[in-house]
């Protein structure tokens, strides 16, 4: 009995040391997992994002200013940070009036959500409002010059080739894509980052034409397009038509040539 007690007494410190070591290793793993999660890209390809304004899109491209398409999942918690970041970018303190783009918020919702929003389906009303009246959508409506478009079924989003909530697309008035990707550096983390800075630069350069050395006329300097590979969006996957697979731009354009199968996006 006594020897048992001595045995346990002798091994107790060792047990604590082992436990402490395991604990520290576990904490290291936790620290790594949380950090890695913030920067982990979604397992979908972003190369299919449209390089120009989709011809089959039912959305209207602004004629005298840039058009910013903001693809969101209305219930994605991580997109709140992207929205706040966009709010800061489009704030009147940072951009002059003529630099403000037209903002189209394309909120993809499942096709059942709109249909079930009928008062006859009382049981599902709450569920539907959880898609169409989310905090994120309310925030998006407060963006300057914004129009929130409910993309039922996600077909319009698919035309733009977006897969991830929080993707920002910037097109000039000619329909050329100037920017594509996320504007937060990490998942759910708002703050200054190169993508947001780049987008800001593109918006500012729109109204700052540099004079031509040869003709003396003012011409806009070329604005190189940036791909989503450089600045990936980090958020939930959008609601897209079932069976939609990652596709390149031509595929997206091809898919967009069958408008009769797609419901008209509804502005909110």
């Amino acid at each position, binding site marked *: 009995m006594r020897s048992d007690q001595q045995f346990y007494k002798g091994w107790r410190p060792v047990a604590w040391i082992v436990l402490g070591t395991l604990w520290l290793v576990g904490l290291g793993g936790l620290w790594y997992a949380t*950090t890695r999660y913030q920067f982990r890209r979604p397992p979908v390809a972003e190369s299919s994002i449209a390089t120009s304004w989709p011809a089959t899109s039912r959305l209207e491209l602004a004629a005298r200013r840039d058009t910013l398409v903001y693809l969101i999942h209305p219930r994605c918690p991580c997109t709140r940070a992207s929205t706040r970041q966009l709010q800061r970018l489009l704030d009147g303190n940072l951009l002059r009036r003529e630099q403000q783009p037209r903002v189209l918020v394309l909120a993809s919702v499942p096709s059942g959500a709109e249909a079930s929003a009928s008062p006859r389906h009382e049981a599902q009303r709450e569920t539907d409002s959880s898609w169409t009246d989310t905090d994120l959508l309310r925030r998006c409506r407060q963006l300057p010059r914004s129009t929130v478009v409910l993309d039922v079924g996600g077909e319009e989003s698919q035309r733009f080739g977006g897969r991830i909530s929080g993707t920002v697309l910037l097109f000039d008035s000619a329909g050329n894509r100037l920017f594509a990707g996320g504007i937060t550096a990490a998942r759910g983390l708002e703050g200054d980052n190169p993508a947001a800075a780049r987008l800001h630069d593109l918006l500012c350069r729109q109204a700052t034409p540099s004079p031509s050395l040869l003709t003396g006329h003012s011409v806009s300097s070329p604005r190189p397009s940036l791909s989503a590979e450089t600045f990936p969006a980090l958020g*939930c996957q959008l609601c897209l038509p079932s069976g939609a697979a990652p596709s390149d731009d031509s595929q997206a354009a091809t898919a967009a040539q069958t408008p009769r199968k797609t419901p008209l996006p509804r502005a909110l």
Partner: protein
Amino acid sequence: MNPLSILRSCWPEGSLREATRQKLVMRQLSLHTRADRMFRVILLLQWVAGVVVALWVSPRTWIGAQSMVHAHVIFAIVGGGLLASLPLAMIAWRPGRLSTRLCIAVAQALFSCLLIHLSGGRIETHFHVFGSLAILAAYRDWRVIALASLVVAGDHFLRGVWWSESVFGITTASRWRWVEHTAWVAFEDVFLFIIIRQSNVEMRQSANLLTDLENAKREAELANKSKDDFLVKVSHEIRTPLNGVLGFTEVMQRGGHTAEQQKKFLQTIHRSGQHLLRLINDILDISKMESGHLDCQLGRCRPDKVIDEIVSVLRVRAAEKGIELESCWRTAVPETIETDEMRFSQVLMNLVGNAIKFTEHGTVRLTAGIHRTDEGSILVVEITDTGIGIHPEKLERIFSPFQQADNSITRRFGGTGLGLPISRQLARALGGDVSVESQVGRGSCFRLFIRAGSLDGIALHNPAAPLPEAPQPTSPPANRTDLEGMSILLCEDGEINRELIGWVLTAAGASVSYAENGQQGVDLIEDCVEKPDLVLMDMQMPVMDGYAATQTLRARGIDLPVIALTAHAMSGDEQKCLAAGCSGYLTKPFRLEALLDMIDNTFETTEQAEASWEDCVGA
């Protein structure tokens, strides 16, 4: 203040008393255990709060219309549980330990990281770091703060260098931004360290104070017990001779005794009175020593003469017990040494008297010698006896007041236990000490060392000189009549003393008048044209005491000789009486011969009063 000195002083342990250190350790343990219990709640709350925040902010993640539990919820449940698990286990099984609070410090710092992550990196959540450090300060342990700060700094360094946006919210931060954030943490740490230091200092002061209070309480209890012991012993010591006084007085009152028996009774009564006087003197000596009022009057005296006188006086007592009392010098005898002769004699009397007292048969031997050292000469007197001896464990005890080797000694030999403590204190006051060696049943050897002062130019003599014969007991002197024609005013409030002193003075031929207090005495002297030849003034009296009365007389130009009679025998009393204007000073109880001698001496040096005091009083 140097930061390192702040760190070092956060746990000021230097030169702590053992009792204080134990109290401090107990208080720290209590404090750490309390803080552990507090963190048990805090850790659980943080865990729950993390899960609630995750469920509130990001409950689910979506793949189109399908959802699943968000990774943040899993991190909150699993991560928070992992963070809290080991600290909670250590709080349960190892409360109050350093390892427990260090583990809590790590968990608390990493909880900040987790909550910052769960809240989407909101800058407000960073205040959790500062709050955590402040709460960790409850441990009053700088190591806890330092470790938590290191974890925070490490987290900021790793994230800041490779994933700056995850901790600073921006990717454009400098690679050294983590230093700035760490500096803010260090900024708070400095204040926390200062507060911890102050708290620890106060805690130590409090523990010191508590120790002092406990010591004082213990000493007060001991003192109270000593006082009780003292009262019991003094009471016994007083009652024993008092019983002799009262008993033999009563026997004599019954009458029917022969003159020889009456003489023997009176001798016993006188001896008992002297014993009482010695007891009171011893108690006064102890009181003086303990209050630091023991004065030594250094002067040149002959050591051989002092020793011879002691031997002469005590040889009678030794002879009565049938033991021999011898003395010798083993070195040359200095003609004089510099010491307080009276105190030296007192110590010797105590030591030799003790040796005789505890020796039933055999010899008590005094061996004296002079030892020269670099610091001067020392007189060493060894008093060796063949008595009962002292047990080694009780050798030091005998030098404590009212302590004898054991109670059986007190019952067998009597005594207050004051002689040796007084002797040691006196010896130390004379620049020396008293030591003892003893063997039970074989005897003891007490060594008295006293500083002899400089012997330069002092003659040294051959020690082989015969000891003077012991003086024979003398009968009380016959009544003296040398105060014939003298008028004396006795100011004394005690009726017995008035009667006794009046009787003695009258028997000596003096004419005595009486006053019961100082005011009466002053009035009598002032109202009469012819003043008395001398005033005997008791110093403690009602209405007006002797000091005030004497001062009044002197203030009014009356320069009669005034002899102070006082029961106060403390140091400084004589000076106080003389300062009041007294011409002489006698301590009660005094020998009647001493009183008459004092009157004679005082009177001889004072001019006779011109007017007749008796006529004045008669008028």
